[in-house]
Protein backbone atom coordinates (compact mmCIF):
# COMPACT_ATOMS: atom_id res chain seq x y z
CA UNK A 1 0.00 0.00 0.00
CA UNK A 2 2.98 2.27 0.41
CA UNK A 3 1.54 3.60 3.67
CA UNK A 4 2.61 3.05 7.23
CA UNK A 5 -0.07 1.30 9.32
CA UNK A 6 -0.70 4.60 11.12
CA UNK A 7 -1.47 6.61 8.02
CA UNK A 8 -3.49 3.75 6.60
CA UNK A 9 -5.58 3.75 9.75
CA UNK A 10 -5.96 7.53 9.65
CA UNK A 11 -7.10 7.44 6.05
CA UNK A 12 -9.78 4.91 6.87
CA UNK A 13 -10.77 6.74 10.02
CA UNK A 14 -11.68 9.79 7.96
CA UNK A 15 -13.52 7.76 5.36
CA UNK A 16 -15.43 5.86 8.03
CA UNK A 17 -16.45 9.05 9.85
CA UNK A 18 -17.64 10.60 6.62
CA UNK A 19 -19.63 7.57 5.49
CA UNK A 20 -21.03 6.98 8.97
CA UNK A 21 -22.07 10.61 9.23
CA UNK A 22 -23.90 10.40 5.91
CA UNK A 23 -25.76 7.29 7.08
CA UNK A 24 -26.52 9.03 10.37
CA UNK A 25 -28.06 12.04 8.61
CA UNK A 26 -30.51 9.76 6.83
CA UNK A 27 -31.07 7.56 9.87
CA UNK A 28 -32.26 10.53 11.93
CA UNK A 29 -35.20 11.00 9.56
CA UNK A 30 -36.31 7.40 10.01
CA UNK A 31 -35.99 7.60 13.75
CA UNK A 32 -37.83 10.92 14.17
CA UNK A 33 -40.81 9.78 12.13
CA UNK A 34 -40.86 6.44 13.90
CA UNK A 35 -40.63 8.22 17.24
CA UNK A 36 -43.82 10.21 16.70
CA UNK A 37 -45.92 8.00 14.42
CA UNK A 38 -44.49 4.49 14.94
CA UNK A 39 -44.21 4.47 11.15
CA UNK A 40 -41.24 3.28 9.12
CA UNK A 41 -41.13 5.73 6.26
CA UNK A 42 -39.84 3.44 3.54
CA UNK A 43 -39.86 6.33 1.08
CA UNK A 44 -37.17 8.14 3.08
CA UNK A 45 -34.24 6.91 0.96
CA UNK A 46 -36.13 7.96 -2.15
CA UNK A 47 -36.62 11.44 -0.76
CA UNK A 48 -32.82 11.59 -0.52
CA UNK A 49 -32.66 10.57 -4.20
CA UNK A 50 -35.17 13.29 -5.13
CA UNK A 51 -33.06 15.82 -3.27
CA UNK A 52 -30.01 14.86 -5.31
CA UNK A 53 -31.97 15.31 -8.54
CA UNK A 54 -33.20 18.71 -7.33
CA UNK A 55 -29.57 19.78 -6.87
CA UNK A 56 -28.57 18.28 -10.20
CA UNK A 57 -31.26 20.12 -12.14
CA UNK A 58 -30.81 23.34 -10.20
CA UNK A 59 -27.19 23.32 -11.34
CA UNK A 60 -27.69 22.15 -14.90
CA UNK A 61 -30.92 23.92 -15.85
CA UNK A 62 -30.86 27.19 -13.95
CA UNK A 63 -27.05 27.16 -13.50
CA UNK A 64 -27.22 27.49 -9.74
CA UNK A 65 -23.77 27.47 -8.12
CA UNK A 66 -23.15 24.33 -5.98
CA UNK A 67 -24.08 25.90 -2.64
CA UNK A 68 -27.34 27.30 -4.00
CA UNK A 69 -28.06 23.95 -5.66
CA UNK A 70 -27.62 22.26 -2.29
CA UNK A 71 -29.97 24.73 -0.63
CA UNK A 72 -32.57 24.17 -3.34
CA UNK A 73 -32.20 20.42 -2.85
CA UNK A 74 -32.68 20.71 0.90
CA UNK A 75 -35.64 23.07 0.65
CA UNK A 76 -37.21 21.00 -2.13
CA UNK A 77 -36.85 17.78 -0.18
CA UNK A 78 -38.28 19.43 2.94
CA UNK A 79 -41.32 20.51 0.95
CA UNK A 80 -41.63 17.08 -0.61
CA UNK A 81 -41.45 15.38 2.78
CA UNK A 82 -44.17 17.67 4.14
CA UNK A 83 -46.32 17.01 1.07
CA UNK A 84 -45.90 13.23 1.26
CA UNK A 85 -47.09 13.27 4.85
CA UNK A 86 -50.08 15.41 3.91
CA UNK A 87 -51.30 13.36 0.95
CA UNK A 88 -50.16 9.83 1.85
CA UNK A 89 -49.84 9.42 5.63
CA UNK A 90 -52.10 12.02 7.27
CA UNK A 91 -55.33 10.46 5.95
CA UNK A 92 -54.23 7.20 7.64
CA UNK A 93 -53.44 8.55 11.11
CA UNK A 94 -56.27 6.61 12.71
CA UNK A 95 -56.01 3.59 10.42
CA UNK A 96 -54.25 0.38 11.48
CA UNK A 97 -50.49 0.83 11.41
CA UNK A 98 -50.05 -1.76 8.68
CA UNK A 99 -52.01 0.46 6.27
CA UNK A 100 -49.55 3.31 6.70
CA UNK A 101 -46.64 0.91 6.34
CA UNK A 102 -47.96 -0.42 3.04
CA UNK A 103 -48.58 3.14 1.89
CA UNK A 104 -44.95 3.98 2.70
CA UNK A 105 -43.73 1.09 0.55
CA UNK A 106 -46.05 2.26 -2.22
CA UNK A 107 -44.73 5.81 -1.89
CA UNK A 108 -41.19 4.46 -2.29
CA UNK A 109 -42.13 2.67 -5.53
CA UNK A 110 -43.96 5.76 -6.69
CA UNK A 111 -40.99 8.09 -6.21
CA UNK A 112 -38.61 5.65 -7.91
CA UNK A 113 -40.94 5.18 -10.87
CA UNK A 114 -41.56 8.91 -11.01
CA UNK A 115 -37.80 9.46 -11.24
CA UNK A 116 -37.43 6.84 -13.98
CA UNK A 117 -40.18 8.44 -16.05
CA UNK A 118 -39.37 12.09 -15.47
CA UNK A 119 -35.58 12.10 -14.94
CA UNK A 120 -34.75 8.99 -16.98
CA UNK A 121 -33.18 5.70 -15.95
CA UNK A 122 -29.74 6.49 -17.37
CA UNK A 123 -27.37 7.59 -14.60
CA UNK A 124 -26.23 11.19 -14.62
CA UNK A 125 -22.95 12.50 -13.27
CA UNK A 126 -23.24 14.74 -10.25
CA UNK A 127 -19.86 16.20 -11.17
CA UNK A 128 -21.72 18.20 -13.81
CA UNK A 129 -23.00 20.32 -10.93
CA UNK A 130 -19.51 21.72 -10.48
CA UNK A 131 -18.09 23.96 -13.18
CA UNK A 132 -14.95 24.38 -11.13
CA UNK A 133 -13.87 20.95 -9.95
CA UNK A 134 -10.77 22.01 -7.96
CA UNK A 135 -12.65 21.80 -4.68
CA UNK A 136 -13.44 18.17 -5.43
CA UNK A 137 -9.82 17.26 -6.11
CA UNK A 138 -7.99 19.16 -3.40
CA UNK A 139 -6.10 16.90 -1.01
CA UNK A 140 -4.74 17.69 2.44
CA UNK A 141 -1.87 15.91 4.16
CA UNK A 142 -2.74 14.82 7.69
CA UNK A 143 -0.10 12.85 9.61
CA UNK A 144 1.22 11.50 6.35
CA UNK A 145 -2.21 10.48 5.11
CA UNK A 146 -3.71 12.11 2.02
CA UNK A 147 -7.22 13.20 2.96
CA UNK A 148 -9.41 14.86 0.32
CA UNK A 149 -10.60 18.32 1.36
CA UNK A 150 -14.07 17.11 0.49
CA UNK A 151 -13.91 14.52 3.26
CA UNK A 152 -13.06 17.21 5.80
CA UNK A 153 -15.85 19.42 4.57
CA UNK A 154 -18.43 16.66 4.66
CA UNK A 155 -17.48 15.70 8.21
CA UNK A 156 -17.57 19.31 9.38
CA UNK A 157 -20.87 20.10 7.68
CA UNK A 158 -22.43 16.89 9.02
CA UNK A 159 -21.30 17.73 12.54
CA UNK A 160 -22.67 21.26 12.14
CA UNK A 161 -26.02 19.93 10.98
CA UNK A 162 -26.24 17.69 14.03
CA UNK A 163 -25.54 20.63 16.33
CA UNK A 164 -28.40 22.53 14.70
CA UNK A 165 -30.63 19.45 14.90
CA UNK A 166 -30.01 19.02 18.64
CA UNK A 167 -30.66 22.69 19.17
CA UNK A 168 -34.00 22.42 17.35
CA UNK A 169 -35.11 19.26 19.13
CA UNK A 170 -33.97 20.13 22.65
CA UNK A 171 -33.97 23.93 22.83
CA UNK A 172 -36.83 25.24 20.71
CA UNK A 173 -40.58 25.23 21.23
CA UNK A 174 -41.30 23.18 18.13
CA UNK A 175 -38.66 20.67 19.25
CA UNK A 176 -40.40 20.40 22.60
CA UNK A 177 -43.68 19.81 20.78
CA UNK A 178 -42.02 17.08 18.68
CA UNK A 179 -40.82 15.33 21.81
CA UNK A 180 -44.23 15.72 23.46
CA UNK A 181 -45.97 14.19 20.45
CA UNK A 182 -43.69 11.17 20.64
CA UNK A 183 -45.03 10.64 24.17
CA UNK A 184 -48.73 11.53 23.95
CA UNK A 185 -50.49 12.92 20.89
CA UNK A 186 -53.96 13.73 22.32
CA UNK A 187 -52.54 15.53 25.34
CA UNK A 188 -50.24 17.53 23.07
CA UNK A 189 -53.26 18.73 21.11
CA UNK A 190 -54.95 19.70 24.41
CA UNK A 191 -52.03 22.13 24.87
CA UNK A 192 -53.24 24.09 21.83
CA UNK A 193 -50.63 22.55 19.57
CA UNK A 194 -51.58 21.72 16.00
CA UNK A 195 -50.22 18.20 15.99
CA UNK A 196 -50.47 17.76 12.22
CA UNK A 197 -48.32 20.83 11.65
CA UNK A 198 -45.67 19.53 14.02
CA UNK A 199 -45.72 16.11 12.35
CA UNK A 200 -45.41 17.83 8.95
CA UNK A 201 -42.48 19.82 10.28
CA UNK A 202 -40.83 16.60 11.46
CA UNK A 203 -41.15 15.10 7.98
CA UNK A 204 -39.74 18.27 6.45
CA UNK A 205 -36.82 18.31 8.86
CA UNK A 206 -35.97 14.63 8.32
CA UNK A 207 -36.25 15.04 4.55
CA UNK A 208 -34.00 18.11 4.62
CA UNK A 209 -31.32 16.10 6.44
CA UNK A 210 -31.68 13.25 3.93
CA UNK A 211 -31.22 15.69 1.05
CA UNK A 212 -28.15 17.21 2.72
CA UNK A 213 -26.76 13.71 3.06
CA UNK A 214 -27.67 12.93 -0.55
CA UNK A 215 -25.92 15.96 -1.96
CA UNK A 216 -22.74 15.16 -0.04
CA UNK A 217 -23.09 11.50 -0.95
CA UNK A 218 -23.29 12.41 -4.64
CA UNK A 219 -20.15 14.51 -4.40
CA UNK A 220 -18.33 11.40 -3.24
CA UNK A 221 -20.23 8.83 -5.35
CA UNK A 222 -21.35 10.92 -8.32
CA UNK A 223 -23.71 8.43 -9.98
CA UNK A 224 -27.20 9.90 -9.92
CA UNK A 225 -29.97 7.43 -10.77
CA UNK A 226 -33.54 6.69 -9.65
CA UNK A 227 -32.62 3.82 -7.33
CA UNK A 228 -29.63 5.50 -5.73
CA UNK A 229 -31.60 6.06 -2.51
CA UNK A 230 -32.29 2.40 -1.94
CA UNK A 231 -28.99 1.14 -0.49
CA UNK A 232 -28.12 4.21 1.62
CA UNK A 233 -31.74 4.32 2.78
CA UNK A 234 -31.68 0.65 3.70
CA UNK A 235 -28.41 1.02 5.61
CA UNK A 236 -29.59 4.15 7.36
CA UNK A 237 -32.75 2.31 8.40
CA UNK A 238 -30.57 -0.48 9.80
CA UNK A 239 -28.47 2.17 11.54
CA UNK A 240 -31.61 3.58 13.15
CA UNK A 241 -32.70 0.13 14.33
CA UNK A 242 -29.21 -0.75 15.57
CA UNK A 243 -28.97 2.54 17.48
CA UNK A 244 -32.46 2.11 18.94
CA UNK A 245 -35.27 3.37 16.72
CA UNK A 246 -36.93 6.46 18.11
CA UNK A 247 -33.69 7.76 19.60
CA UNK A 248 -31.84 10.55 17.75
CA UNK A 249 -28.49 9.97 19.48
CA UNK A 250 -29.05 6.27 18.77
CA UNK A 251 -29.45 6.96 15.05
CA UNK A 252 -26.18 8.88 15.02
CA UNK A 253 -24.32 6.15 16.90
CA UNK A 254 -25.86 3.49 14.64
CA UNK A 255 -24.89 5.41 11.50
CA UNK A 256 -21.31 5.89 12.64
CA UNK A 257 -21.05 2.26 13.70
CA UNK A 258 -22.19 1.07 10.28
CA UNK A 259 -19.81 3.43 8.51
CA UNK A 260 -16.88 2.30 10.64
CA UNK A 261 -17.54 -1.41 10.26
CA UNK A 262 -18.08 -1.13 6.55
CA UNK A 263 -14.89 0.85 5.89
CA UNK A 264 -12.60 -0.94 8.33
CA UNK A 265 -13.76 -4.42 7.47
CA UNK A 266 -13.01 -3.83 3.83
CA UNK A 267 -9.75 -2.04 4.64
CA UNK A 268 -8.30 -4.81 6.78
CA UNK A 269 -9.99 -7.76 5.10
CA UNK A 270 -9.85 -6.81 1.41
CA UNK A 271 -11.10 -10.29 0.48
CA UNK A 272 -14.47 -9.33 1.94
CA UNK A 273 -14.85 -6.24 -0.18
CA UNK A 274 -17.45 -8.01 -2.32
CA UNK A 275 -19.58 -8.40 0.81
CA UNK A 276 -19.40 -4.72 1.66
CA UNK A 277 -23.18 -4.25 1.66
CA UNK A 278 -23.73 -7.38 3.73
CA UNK A 279 -21.99 -6.03 6.85
CA UNK A 280 -24.92 -3.79 7.69
CA UNK A 281 -27.27 -6.77 7.69
CA UNK A 282 -24.87 -8.86 9.77
CA UNK A 283 -24.73 -6.10 12.39
CA UNK A 284 -28.51 -5.86 12.29
CA UNK A 285 -28.88 -9.57 12.96
CA UNK A 286 -26.34 -9.48 15.79
CA UNK A 287 -28.03 -6.51 17.45
CA UNK A 288 -31.47 -8.03 17.07
CA UNK A 289 -30.18 -11.14 18.82
CA UNK A 290 -28.37 -9.35 21.66
CA UNK A 291 -30.49 -6.24 22.28
CA UNK A 292 -33.59 -6.13 20.09
CA UNK A 293 -34.44 -2.59 21.16
CA UNK A 294 -31.11 -1.30 19.84
CA UNK A 295 -28.10 0.29 21.53
CA UNK A 296 -29.95 3.26 23.06
CA UNK A 297 -33.45 1.89 22.64
CA UNK A 298 -35.88 1.57 25.48
CA UNK A 299 -37.69 -1.68 26.13
CA UNK A 300 -40.22 -2.36 23.43
CA UNK A 301 -42.91 0.16 24.26
CA UNK A 302 -46.17 -0.44 22.51
CA UNK A 303 -48.21 2.69 22.12
CA UNK A 304 -51.60 2.29 23.72
Amino acid at each position, binding site marked *: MGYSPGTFFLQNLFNATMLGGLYALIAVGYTMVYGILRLINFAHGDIMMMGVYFAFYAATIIYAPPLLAAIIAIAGAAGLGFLIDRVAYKPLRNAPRISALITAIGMSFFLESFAVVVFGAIPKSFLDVFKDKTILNKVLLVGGARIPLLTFLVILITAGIFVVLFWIVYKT*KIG*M*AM*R*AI*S*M*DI*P*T*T*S*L*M*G*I*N*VDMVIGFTFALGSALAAASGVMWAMRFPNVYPYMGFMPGMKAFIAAVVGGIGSIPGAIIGGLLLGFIEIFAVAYFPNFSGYRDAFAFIILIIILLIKPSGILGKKAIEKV
Partner: protein
Amino acid sequence: MSEAGEKLVLEIKDLHVYYGAIHAIKGISIKVPQGKIITLIGANGAGKTTTLSTISGLVKARSGKIFFNGVDITNKPAHAINRMGIAMVPEGRRIFPGLTVYENLMMGAYNRKDKEGIKEDLEWIFSLFPRLKERLSQMGGTLSGGEQQMLAISRALMSRPRLLMMDEPSLGLAPILVEEVFEVIQKINKEGTTILLVEQNAYGALRISDYGYVLETGNIVLEGPSSELLENEMVKKAYLGMS
Protein backbone atom coordinates in the same frame (compact mmCIF):
# COMPACT_ATOMS: atom_id res chain seq x y z
CA MET B 1 -78.63 28.94 38.55
CA SER B 2 -79.51 29.79 35.00
CA GLU B 3 -81.30 33.01 35.89
CA ALA B 4 -81.72 35.45 33.06
CA GLY B 5 -78.81 37.81 32.53
CA GLU B 6 -76.22 35.40 33.84
CA LYS B 7 -73.33 35.11 31.39
CA LEU B 8 -72.70 31.54 30.24
CA VAL B 9 -69.10 30.55 29.56
CA LEU B 10 -70.13 27.14 28.31
CA GLU B 11 -73.44 25.81 27.11
CA ILE B 12 -74.07 22.26 25.92
CA LYS B 13 -77.34 21.59 24.12
CA ASP B 14 -78.71 18.09 23.58
CA LEU B 15 -75.33 16.46 23.02
CA HIS B 16 -75.09 12.92 21.61
CA VAL B 17 -71.78 11.06 21.37
CA TYR B 18 -71.09 7.59 20.00
CA TYR B 19 -68.11 5.28 20.02
CA GLY B 20 -68.94 3.22 16.96
CA ALA B 21 -72.24 1.66 17.87
CA ILE B 22 -71.97 2.52 21.57
CA HIS B 23 -74.22 5.45 22.46
CA ALA B 24 -72.11 6.97 25.24
CA ILE B 25 -73.81 10.38 25.67
CA LYS B 26 -77.56 10.44 25.13
CA GLY B 27 -78.66 14.02 24.75
CA ILE B 28 -77.31 16.00 27.69
CA SER B 29 -77.57 19.76 28.27
CA ILE B 30 -75.24 21.60 30.65
CA LYS B 31 -74.76 25.26 31.50
CA VAL B 32 -71.60 26.69 33.02
CA PRO B 33 -72.04 30.34 34.14
CA GLN B 34 -69.06 32.64 34.42
CA GLY B 35 -67.13 32.58 37.68
CA LYS B 36 -68.75 29.43 39.06
CA ILE B 37 -67.65 25.92 39.86
CA ILE B 38 -69.96 23.44 38.14
CA THR B 39 -69.59 19.76 38.82
CA LEU B 40 -70.51 16.67 36.89
CA ILE B 41 -70.68 13.59 39.08
CA GLY B 42 -71.40 9.99 38.25
CA ALA B 43 -70.17 6.44 38.58
CA ASN B 44 -67.46 4.81 36.54
CA GLY B 45 -68.52 4.54 32.89
CA ALA B 46 -71.31 7.12 33.18
CA GLY B 47 -69.81 9.25 30.38
CA LYS B 48 -68.03 12.01 32.34
CA THR B 49 -64.72 11.73 30.48
CA THR B 50 -66.54 11.45 27.16
CA THR B 51 -68.36 14.70 27.90
CA LEU B 52 -65.13 16.56 28.66
CA SER B 53 -63.35 14.99 25.69
CA THR B 54 -66.13 16.14 23.39
CA ILE B 55 -66.00 19.70 24.72
CA SER B 56 -62.22 19.76 24.28
CA GLY B 57 -62.40 18.41 20.73
CA LEU B 58 -60.74 15.02 21.22
CA VAL B 59 -63.98 13.14 20.58
CA LYS B 60 -66.53 14.19 17.94
CA ALA B 61 -70.19 14.82 18.70
CA ARG B 62 -72.81 12.99 16.63
CA SER B 63 -75.40 15.71 17.22
CA GLY B 64 -76.08 18.63 19.53
CA LYS B 65 -74.20 21.88 20.05
CA ILE B 66 -71.46 23.21 22.30
CA PHE B 67 -71.11 26.97 22.73
CA PHE B 68 -68.17 28.72 24.36
CA ASN B 69 -68.90 32.36 25.20
CA GLY B 70 -71.70 32.17 22.68
CA VAL B 71 -69.50 30.81 19.87
CA ASP B 72 -70.28 27.39 18.40
CA ILE B 73 -67.21 25.20 18.99
CA THR B 74 -68.84 21.83 18.26
CA ASN B 75 -66.36 19.45 16.62
CA LYS B 76 -63.63 22.07 16.21
CA PRO B 77 -60.10 20.61 16.45
CA ALA B 78 -58.72 20.26 19.98
CA HIS B 79 -55.86 22.72 19.49
CA ALA B 80 -58.26 25.40 18.24
CA ILE B 81 -60.56 24.92 21.24
CA ASN B 82 -57.65 25.23 23.64
CA ARG B 83 -56.52 28.42 21.92
CA MET B 84 -60.00 29.90 22.46
CA GLY B 85 -59.51 29.57 26.22
CA ILE B 86 -60.50 26.11 27.38
CA ALA B 87 -57.88 24.13 29.28
CA MET B 88 -58.14 20.57 30.48
CA VAL B 89 -56.65 18.59 33.32
CA PRO B 90 -57.04 15.14 31.78
CA GLU B 91 -58.03 11.96 33.53
CA GLY B 92 -54.91 10.22 34.80
CA ARG B 93 -52.96 13.52 34.69
CA ARG B 94 -51.21 12.76 31.39
CA ILE B 95 -47.95 14.46 32.32
CA PHE B 96 -45.32 14.26 29.56
CA PRO B 97 -42.99 11.82 31.31
CA GLY B 98 -39.86 12.61 29.29
CA LEU B 99 -40.19 16.39 29.54
CA THR B 100 -38.95 18.27 32.58
CA VAL B 101 -41.43 19.84 34.97
CA TYR B 102 -40.50 23.22 33.51
CA GLU B 103 -41.07 21.99 29.97
CA ASN B 104 -44.42 20.50 30.99
CA LEU B 105 -45.43 23.94 32.28
CA MET B 106 -44.21 25.58 29.08
CA MET B 107 -46.30 23.12 27.06
CA GLY B 108 -49.30 24.70 28.76
CA ALA B 109 -48.09 28.16 27.73
CA TYR B 110 -47.21 27.05 24.19
CA ASN B 111 -49.28 29.65 22.35
CA ARG B 112 -48.48 32.57 24.62
CA LYS B 113 -46.07 35.29 23.58
CA ASP B 114 -46.25 37.50 26.70
CA LYS B 115 -43.02 36.59 28.50
CA GLU B 116 -43.86 38.83 31.46
CA GLY B 117 -47.30 37.30 31.91
CA ILE B 118 -45.83 33.80 31.76
CA LYS B 119 -43.37 34.73 34.50
CA GLU B 120 -46.16 36.14 36.67
CA ASP B 121 -48.24 33.01 36.21
CA LEU B 122 -45.27 30.81 37.09
CA GLU B 123 -44.86 32.74 40.35
CA TRP B 124 -48.58 32.35 41.05
CA ILE B 125 -48.34 28.61 40.42
CA PHE B 126 -45.34 28.30 42.71
CA SER B 127 -47.37 30.04 45.41
CA LEU B 128 -50.12 27.44 44.93
CA PHE B 129 -47.69 24.49 44.71
CA PRO B 130 -44.33 25.39 46.30
CA ARG B 131 -43.11 21.83 45.73
CA LEU B 132 -43.15 22.21 41.95
CA LYS B 133 -40.55 24.96 42.12
CA GLU B 134 -38.01 22.60 43.66
CA ARG B 135 -38.60 20.04 40.93
CA LEU B 136 -38.41 22.21 37.81
CA SER B 137 -35.52 20.37 36.16
CA GLN B 138 -36.78 16.91 37.10
CA MET B 139 -38.46 14.72 34.48
CA GLY B 140 -42.25 14.73 34.75
CA GLY B 141 -42.31 10.94 34.91
CA THR B 142 -40.29 10.90 38.13
CA LEU B 143 -42.87 12.85 40.15
CA SER B 144 -45.19 11.21 42.67
CA GLY B 145 -48.88 10.89 41.82
CA GLY B 146 -49.80 13.93 43.90
CA GLU B 147 -47.06 16.04 42.38
CA GLN B 148 -48.13 14.96 38.91
CA GLN B 149 -51.68 16.09 39.64
CA MET B 150 -50.40 19.47 40.79
CA LEU B 151 -48.31 19.71 37.64
CA ALA B 152 -51.29 18.78 35.47
CA ILE B 153 -53.37 21.54 37.09
CA SER B 154 -50.51 24.02 36.79
CA ARG B 155 -49.88 23.12 33.17
CA ALA B 156 -53.53 23.80 32.36
CA LEU B 157 -53.39 27.12 34.23
CA MET B 158 -50.34 28.21 32.22
CA SER B 159 -52.59 28.88 29.24
CA ARG B 160 -54.60 31.37 31.36
CA PRO B 161 -57.85 29.59 30.50
CA ARG B 162 -61.27 31.18 30.78
CA LEU B 163 -62.69 27.74 31.44
CA LEU B 164 -60.75 25.08 33.33
CA MET B 165 -62.04 21.52 32.99
CA MET B 166 -60.79 18.87 35.40
CA ASP B 167 -61.34 15.15 35.05
CA GLU B 168 -61.23 13.43 38.44
CA PRO B 169 -58.36 15.42 39.92
CA SER B 170 -58.71 13.65 43.26
CA LEU B 171 -58.51 10.13 41.85
CA GLY B 172 -55.84 7.96 43.41
CA LEU B 173 -54.60 10.60 45.84
CA ALA B 174 -54.07 10.18 49.57
CA PRO B 175 -56.91 11.79 51.62
CA ILE B 176 -54.73 14.70 52.74
CA LEU B 177 -53.82 15.47 49.13
CA VAL B 178 -57.46 15.22 48.10
CA GLU B 179 -58.21 17.99 50.60
CA GLU B 180 -55.36 20.05 49.19
CA VAL B 181 -56.55 19.63 45.61
CA PHE B 182 -60.11 20.70 46.48
CA GLU B 183 -58.77 23.74 48.32
CA VAL B 184 -56.64 24.71 45.33
CA ILE B 185 -59.63 24.39 43.00
CA GLN B 186 -61.50 26.88 45.18
CA LYS B 187 -58.52 29.24 45.21
CA ILE B 188 -58.21 29.12 41.42
CA ASN B 189 -61.92 29.84 41.11
CA LYS B 190 -61.71 32.79 43.53
CA GLU B 191 -59.02 34.28 41.27
CA GLY B 192 -61.62 34.38 38.51
CA THR B 193 -61.38 31.13 36.56
CA THR B 194 -64.62 29.32 35.75
CA ILE B 195 -64.39 25.59 36.49
CA LEU B 196 -66.11 22.49 35.20
CA LEU B 197 -65.19 19.71 37.61
CA VAL B 198 -65.77 16.02 36.92
CA GLU B 199 -65.60 13.77 39.97
CA GLN B 200 -66.47 10.37 41.34
CA ASN B 201 -65.79 11.85 44.75
CA ALA B 202 -69.28 13.33 44.86
CA TYR B 203 -69.07 14.64 48.40
CA GLY B 204 -65.87 16.60 47.82
CA ALA B 205 -67.06 17.98 44.50
CA LEU B 206 -70.53 19.02 45.73
CA ARG B 207 -69.07 20.70 48.83
CA ILE B 208 -66.94 23.12 46.81
CA SER B 209 -69.18 23.65 43.76
CA ASP B 210 -72.12 25.94 43.07
CA TYR B 211 -74.24 23.66 40.92
CA GLY B 212 -74.12 19.99 40.05
CA TYR B 213 -75.25 17.53 37.40
CA VAL B 214 -75.61 13.81 38.03
CA LEU B 215 -74.75 11.63 35.03
CA GLU B 216 -75.90 8.01 34.71
CA THR B 217 -75.13 5.92 31.61
CA GLY B 218 -75.07 8.91 29.32
CA ASN B 219 -78.10 10.72 30.74
CA ILE B 220 -78.38 13.56 33.22
CA VAL B 221 -80.73 12.14 35.83
CA LEU B 222 -80.61 15.00 38.31
CA GLU B 223 -79.33 18.55 38.58
CA GLY B 224 -79.50 21.36 41.07
CA PRO B 225 -77.59 23.66 43.38
CA SER B 226 -74.83 21.63 45.01
CA SER B 227 -76.08 22.34 48.53
CA GLU B 228 -79.44 20.83 47.58
CA LEU B 229 -77.87 17.81 45.90
CA LEU B 230 -75.91 17.13 49.07
CA GLU B 231 -79.27 16.77 50.87
CA ASN B 232 -80.97 14.82 48.07
CA GLU B 233 -82.00 11.31 49.13
CA MET B 234 -81.09 9.65 45.84
CA VAL B 235 -77.66 11.34 45.77
CA LYS B 236 -77.07 10.41 49.38
CA LYS B 237 -77.87 6.81 48.66
CA ALA B 238 -76.10 6.33 45.35
CA TYR B 239 -73.11 8.65 45.61
CA LEU B 240 -72.45 9.59 49.17
CA GLY B 241 -72.57 6.09 50.57
CA MET B 242 -75.38 6.92 53.01
CA SER B 243 -78.61 5.07 53.38
